[in-house]
């Protein structure tokens, strides 16, 4: 787990060597982007139901790719969109490699998520939690492209950016969100 890595990073010679040299402005820029975007990108990666360690590794590769991209003087326009696109493609490849995780991590009831939470917020009413369960259940059964559109929108991407990440048209993004939100609304109103 990446959380364990923080305790023992100093033991790695690579980390020790790195600390001896001052980071370049480009390295600092990439680290700064990593800090800004780590949470939304990780959430997006986890929505592919890959494991947390795999998602962290994909994230590292994405930002190393960003570093190479910038170092080669390639376009800087909409770096957030570029990062999400690379993360999306990397997540698909990662999931292909580790298919078995898809069955182990799931939004499905009783496996993970709100329903399996052993210590729910005491102020949360049963009704609210049931509604949340229904929302997650609907999300889980949506077609993958619809899930991706919703997740990317939830992370604040505009329709055009979502279209670029997924390689689909603006119309498809709008139609997908319309369809998914209709299903989520119905689930809330049950």
């Amino acid at each position, binding site marked *: 787990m990446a959380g364990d890595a923080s305790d023992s990073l100093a033991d790695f010679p690579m980390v020790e060597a790195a600390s001896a040299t001052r980071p370049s402005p480009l390295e600092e820029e990439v680290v700064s982007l990593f800090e800004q975007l780590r949470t939304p990108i990780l959430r997006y990666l986890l929505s592919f139901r890959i494991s947390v360690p795999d998602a962290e590794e994909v994230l590292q590769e994405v930002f190393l790719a960003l570093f190479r991209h910038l170092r080669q003087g390639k376009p800087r326009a909409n770096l957030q969109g570029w990062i999400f696109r690379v993360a999306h493609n990397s997540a698909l490849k990662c999931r292909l490699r580790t298919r078995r995780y898809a069955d182990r991590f799931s939004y499905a009831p009783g496996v993970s998520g709100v329903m399996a939470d052993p210590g729910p917020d005491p102020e949360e009413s049963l009704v609210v939690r049931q509604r949340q369960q229904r929302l997650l259940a609907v999300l889980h059964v949506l077609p993958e492209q619809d899930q991706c559109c919703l997740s990317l929108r*939830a992370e604040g991407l505009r329709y055009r950016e979502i279209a670029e990440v997924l*390689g689909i*048209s*603006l119309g498809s993004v709008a139609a997908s*969100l319309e369809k998914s939100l209709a299903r989520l609304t119905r689930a809330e109103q049950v």
Partner: protein
Amino acid sequence: MMSGNVHLSEHDLILAADGELPARRKAEVTAHLETCWACRERMLSLQSTITDFVRVRNRELNRQLPDAAGPRALLRARLSEAAAAPAQGFSLSRFGFPDFRRPTTSIGRLAMAAGAFVAVILTILGIFQTTVNAEGPKPRASLTPGETRPITLQEVCLYEKAEVISRDIPQDMRERVFAAYGIKSPQKDQFEVDYLITPDLGGTESIHNLWPQPYSVRWNAHVKDKLEERLHELVCGGKLDLPTAQHDIAVDWIAAYKKYVGDDKTQ
């Protein structure tokens, strides 16, 4: 355009909630919402669903996220290592692949040549398979010649920007399009059934104006959106007449892209 008796569509409500409506349409929708309680209630319900969804999704995913300190330190170390390597010194061997760049023996050269030969054969097979199993980036003229409806320049230019966001094509129509092209059991992520002449430029929703456009090609639906926006701009700017725009996008949209947008702007 919008009378008091006509309620907003879900499409308009969602685009309004997401700030994706063209300016003029946005003004109309806002004005309607000010006067229509029913639509305002629907908008609030939609906003509530979005809020609940984002809250539950983020809470579910955030609880799995480890602390950032370790990954950040690891990234710094990897960046430092990458920065120390020459910019062009990328080696596949670092990722477990053999380094083919410097074959030192005749056997190495032979293996490299054999590899290149196999790659060429696989590429040819891939192209062949694509040709057989999937439509290219252009539609078949015999099936999708493009079809237009009567439309005035004023209607085309009602909004400042092209209305490339159009309604989803009904499932039965999509199936008819796939059947016409002989595509059996298409995967959802392989094709988008797309308009040849966009409705924004007067294209119809007829089967003669629809075709299955593959996602996995350079000239995909997203690229075509750019052409549609450009044609809208040119037509409404008085630099191109509407029939020419309709003709050019219908006959060869890729050539039209190269002509009106530019050849090297698809990436």
